[in-house]
């Protein structure tokens, strides 16, 4: 009971916070289901549901009655908090302190019913959330899963409507679905119900039959499995290749940004995820790659006038070199000292390219323009849909290199250094070469990303390389899962792709970042997609000889 009250209080405070910083009001402009449920209401509802299910889950001994009572209590408290906010708002002018406490907010909170009707409504709403959470907790695992997946899909379709609508519109047969599924703002009621039923049915079937299918697949002969793997791989490549044509201009642009961050993330994943060297100045190598391309190719400066492909090897080489140069002074540093030193390095590079002294060579605050685009087979990579292929190739290459390195002598040496530097050295690992190699590899990936970035934009400015980029990359590596290659992909989509799609809420981006990081550290420190364990012992047949080689 105490626990339930505590969780309720936390939930209530969170709801009030969301309301007073204006998130609910901003989100209420968009509908999930037109004129019925707005995104703001969904947010309130989701937080309440989350907190009440937590309350039910934390019930000692899993007693069903107690769990239900706990969830109801927490829900009532959350509803009560919002009711208090509404009452307070009607008595005192909160707007003097909280500029977002507008009359419109109270209207949203009371579902346009006015205070008298709104307060009981809020309390009932809270209790209803608790009741739902309790029901969910008590229902079977299958039911819970199906319900969560299908509700999540409806909310997801509503949130990403701007993404889905133009995509469907490009495809003849699918464009019919647009009419049916989407209105001008949010899903139609029938569309939402239809989608819910469809996804529920699909996930139910998968939950029931999925194991059978998986067992069948595992039962295939090794050669058939190989064929299956290759087909899956080829299909995936095909999808990746036609993706920009399906998605259209805007989404391809988003994809290229995500792709650049994937490149950066994969590089930092080697430095931080594999070798455990916390590098907060990683943007420096991105800048070095971009500026190398700019200086080597731009006719504005007129030093070299190389083509993109002519300059790229130099850009990567300069990146590697600067990785070494940064690595040497910080070899003896660990943890926080290393973080501060690298942070300084990142700033030094940015300030150098900004400086007036170096302006004739690096362009100063005006940056460098007229950077030529890359050409592949005579075609200029100019539009996002074309640059996508360049970035895709880069990501595949860098991903492949990371994957090869991870399961090798070098990858193990990096991880050993991450786990315990002294013992790693006592096991015969040369710390100097191992650390420098990590810095250099990471820098090379980052420089590649910077090179593509420069050619994509056609110009480079010092302010594109501020410390927030470093922080963003660290965040996406942590959220995805440190040391995990697919984790970088997931992290980049979650922390870079999603905010690009939800541009209208950009002012809450950092807040959500912070909240997401804290939540990750508390609830899932291993990341969204942690590195799977390497099964090496049982890979091949056991040997019978029990004596080590000597």
């Amino acid at each position, binding site marked *: 009971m105490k626990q339930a009250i505590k969780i309720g209080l936390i939930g209530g405070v969170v709801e009030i916070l969301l309301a007073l910083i204006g998130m609910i009001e901003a989100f209420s402009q968009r509908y999930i289901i037109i004129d019925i449920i707005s995104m703001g209401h969904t947010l309130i509802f989701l937080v309440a549901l989350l907190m009440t299910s937590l309350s039910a889950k934390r019930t000692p001994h899993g007693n069903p009655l107690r769990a239900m009572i706990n969830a109801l209590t927490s829900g009532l408290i959350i509803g009560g908090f919002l009711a208090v906010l509404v009452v307070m708002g009607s008595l005192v002018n909160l707007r003097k302190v909280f500029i977002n406490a507008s009359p419109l907010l109270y209207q949203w909170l009371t579902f346009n019913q006015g205070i008298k009707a709104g307060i009981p409504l809020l309390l009932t709403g809270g209790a209803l959330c608790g009741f739902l959470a309790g029901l969910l907790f008590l229902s079977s695992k299958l039911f819970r899963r199906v319900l969560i997946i299908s509700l999540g899909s409806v909310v997801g379709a509503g949130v990403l409507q701007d993404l889905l609508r133009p995509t469907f519109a490009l495809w003849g047969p699918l464009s019919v679905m647009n009419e049916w599924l989407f209105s001008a703002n949010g899903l139609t009621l029938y569309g939402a119900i239809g989608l819910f039923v469809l996804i529920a049915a699909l996930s139910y079937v998968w939950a029931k039959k999925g194991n059978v299918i998986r067992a069948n697949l595992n039962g295939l002969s090794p050669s058939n499995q190989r064929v299956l793997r290759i087909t899956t791989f080829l299909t995936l490549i095909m999808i990746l290749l036609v993706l920009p044509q399906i998605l259209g201009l805007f989404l391809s642009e988003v994809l290229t940004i995500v792709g650049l961050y994937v490149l950066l993330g994969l590089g930092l994943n080697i430095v931080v995820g594999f070798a455990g060297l916390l590098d907060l100045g990683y943007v420096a190598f991105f800048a070095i790659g971009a500026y190398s391309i700019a200086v080597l190719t731009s006719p504005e400066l007129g030093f070299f006038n190389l083509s993109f492909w002519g300059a790229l090897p130099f850009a990567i080489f300069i990146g590697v070199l600067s990785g070494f140069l940064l690595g040497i002074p910080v070899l003896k540093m660990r943890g926080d000292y290393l973080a501060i030193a690298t942070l300084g390095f990142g700033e030094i590079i940015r300030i150098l390219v900004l400086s007036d002294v170096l302006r004739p060579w690096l362009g100063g605050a005006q940056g460098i323009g007229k950077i030529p685009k890359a050409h592949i087979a005579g075609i200029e990579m100019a539009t996002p849909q074309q640059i996508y292929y360049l970035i895709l190739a880069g990501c595949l290459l860098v991903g492949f290199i990371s994957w090869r390195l991870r399961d090798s002598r070098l990858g193990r040496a990096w*991880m050993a250094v991450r786990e315990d530097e*002294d013992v790693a050295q006592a096991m015969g690992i040369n710390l100097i070469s191992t650390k420098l190699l990590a810095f250099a590899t990471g820098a090379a990936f980052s420089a590649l990303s910077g090179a593509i970035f420069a050619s994509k934009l056609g110009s480079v400015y010092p302010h594109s390389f501020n410390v927030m980029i470093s922080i963003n990359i660290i965040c996406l590596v942590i959220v995805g899962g440190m040391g995990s290659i697919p984790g970088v992909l997931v992290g980049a989509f979650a922390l870079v792709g999603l905010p690009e799609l939800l541009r209208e809420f950009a002012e809450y981006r950092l807040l959500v970042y912070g909240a997401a990081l804290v939540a990750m550290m508390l609830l899932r420190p291993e990341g969204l997609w942690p590195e799977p364990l390497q099964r090496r012992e049982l890979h091949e047949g*056991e040997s019978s000889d*029990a004596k080590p080689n*000597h």
Partner: protein
Amino acid sequence: MAILSAQKMTKRFGGLVAVDELDIEIKEQSIHTIIGPNGAGKTTFFNCITGFYRPEAGGIFFNHHPLVGLSPDRIVRLGISRTYQNIRLFPNLTAMENILVGLHGHLKAGFFGIVLGLPATQQEEKEAAEEGRRLLRFVNLTGKGDLLAKNLPYGDQRRLEIGRALAARPKLLLLDEPTAGMNPRETQEMMDFIQHLRNELGITILLIEHQMRVVMGISETVTVLDYGEKIAEGTPVEIQKSPKVIEAYLGRSSQVVS
């Protein structure tokens, strides 16, 4: 002949003399134990041998090869590997990966060989995995190779640490309190295992130990340190009778009583 010798080796921390002009010779293929009260300088001596500390004076020689000034990774490549008093595995790597890290110095794959997947690299990796499995079996951890090191029970972790040290193919193995925290049965198994290592693989073993049962049971030579000085050396029986040792362990008054 001596595989390892220290001559007038001294290690100071500020004003404190941790090891004072230590002369010691470890005979090849012997089981040699260092004992002494807490703070006698035993682990400091280990750290000097393996290159973590640099002695202020004197020398350490491994097969007449001077060790002072070499980095730890060079020393392990010469053929000296160790375990730690408080187990220091790589906790988030699997048991198998821990052992493969131990093999690091014997693998040659370079950056481009790995990225390009050259046949030589793949062959080397395959052989390394094979040897890793053999070592797992040798330390009785078959079937636990894919578990994270931190999830293994205590006794398994101790054996895994020895397995990792063996992966470096040492000629001299330094064991820092291998039976710490073990019950009598586990202790007996560890004693048998240590003798097995020496008898089967011909590895010289230098260990630090507190349990007298182990010291007396398996050592051929015992060296006693007290306040960084060697106060006695000899067979277990000789040590048990030495008045200096009794004094160091039980204090001066006990002599008066006895």
